[in-house]
């Protein structure tokens, strides 16, 4: 069995992740931040440790500016819906996932203006971005790395432009957090949305926001209100982080697992993980490129994540993925990958592509088997 669908969710998880979750369930899982007994405090510590490790990973100074959500989708919705008002203008790229596109298109109907910049080489893209800025531009929201072809966007330059123009800059780091080094200050990121279950190697149901220390978060309305364990005498929602956005009992067991995932990748070093994964992707790509009858959808950036989109010209992507699964036990993902706009942008809409995405547990042997399978499929079908 070969799993190369890590852009959907990473698999397997390091053993430490499951063990940390079991330890939390068996030894700590009181209600964190609610009661004041030792077990509740222990549960709170487990979650706080996750905040600390995430803050360290992203070079965020204050761990309390990590806000936990269910996943990147919820985190993105929190800012998109909580910040944008009718009459505001937002700039984004054509390579966004539907977790960005759908909330934006929904708000467009209510009077939010949207400019979608078509993906181009970095310099041209940044030029277009700068030209799209208007008086009412309130937010620039960019995918850090595409889940379709691994394209890495020039967030540092985009963030600089946003800063110069007094515009909030947010990135969708669902595909990058954990496999590309990120520094919220160096990279000029105001707000970052992450998901726990991809390159951070945590369980599903974990994710959130990192809000830089100099961002006025009170401009974002909270989507949910309720119990926080703080200011219990008040019937109004607290206005400090993370409580303002974190009502309800948190996913302590999931966040304990996420912490173990982060500690695992941090010990391995993010840039080394990136180098390793990308070398697997290059190996695969160099074969696909020299094969007749195969189209490969290259990203418009020099560097990329280890996500490769291709098609065998005569075959639908869904069929290729099905044969890879049924005959070779190789798990990929076909179709549009929740990103119709991105597929339009790279010219593979509506049929989609076969996507192969590597993770830390893949090997060169996996790549060889994958290449052999693709050779056979393009010959036999």
């Amino acid at each position, binding site marked *: 069995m070969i799993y190369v669908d890590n852009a959907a969710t990473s698999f397997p998880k390091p053993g430490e992740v499951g063990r940390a979750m079991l330890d939390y369930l068996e030894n700590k899982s009181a209600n964190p*931040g609610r009661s004041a007994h030792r077990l509740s405090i222990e549960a*709170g510590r487990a979650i*706080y440790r996750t905040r600390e490790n995430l803050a360290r990973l992203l070079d965020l100074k204050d761990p*309390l500016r990590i806000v936990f959500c269910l996943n990147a989708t919820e985190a993105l919705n929190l800012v998109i819906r909580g910040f944008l008002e009718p009459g505001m203008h937002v700039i984004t790229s054509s390579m966004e996932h539907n977790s960005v596109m759908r909330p934006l298109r929904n708000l467009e109907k209510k009077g939010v203006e949207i400019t979608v910049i078509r993906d181009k080489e970095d310099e041209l893209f940044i030029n277009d971005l700068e030209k799209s800025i208007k008086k009412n531009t309130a937010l620039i929201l960019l995918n850090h790395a595409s889940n379709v072809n691994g394209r890495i966007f020039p967030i540092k330059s985009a963030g600089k432009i946003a800063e110069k123009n007094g515009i909030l800059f947010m990135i969708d780091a669902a595909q990058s957090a954990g496999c590309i080094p990120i520094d919220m200050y160096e990279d000029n990121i105001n707000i970052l949305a992450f998901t726990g279950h991809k390159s951070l190697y945590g369980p599903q149901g974990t994710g959130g926001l990192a809000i830089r220390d100099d961002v006025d978060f009170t401009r974002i309305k909270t989507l949910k209100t309720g119990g*926080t364990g*703080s200011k219990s005498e008040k019937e109004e929602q607290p206005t400090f982080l993370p409580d303002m956005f974190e009502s309800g009992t948190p996913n302590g067991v999931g966040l304990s697992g996420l912490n173990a995932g982060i500690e695992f990748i941090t010990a391995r070093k993010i840039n080394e993980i990136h180098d390793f994964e990308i070398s697997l992707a290059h190996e695969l790509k160099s074969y696909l490129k020299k094969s007749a009858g195969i189209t490969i959808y290259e990203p418009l950036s020099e560097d990329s994540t280890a996500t490769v989109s291709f098609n065998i010209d005569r075959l639908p992507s869904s069929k290729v993925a099905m044969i890879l699964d049924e005959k070779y036990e190789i798990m990929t993902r076909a179709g549009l990958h929740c990103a119709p706009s991105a597929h339009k942008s790279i010219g593979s809409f509506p049929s989609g592509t076969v996507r192969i995405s590597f993770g830390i547990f893949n090997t060169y042997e996996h790549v060889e088997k994958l290449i052999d399978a693709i050779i056979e499929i393009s010959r036999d079908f």
Partner: protein
Amino acid sequence: MKEARSVILFYSSSAALKMESLAKSENLVVKLIPIPRDLSSDCGICLLVLNDDMEEIKTIIDNHRIEYEGIHDYMV
């Protein structure tokens, strides 16, 4: 004889946990305890510290711009 101690009250348990983590990384002896009833009706936690460490505690509070509700003598 017991050393003199104080409790620091914060606005959220996350802030108390943050202070605990920072104090422990400076090897200070601290302990999270339930907020004494006479200090607040809130059911949360506060940080018990030694008065001898107060200067270092305050330095941490300043350096990390930690907002706190108040510092009170701790009576057993």
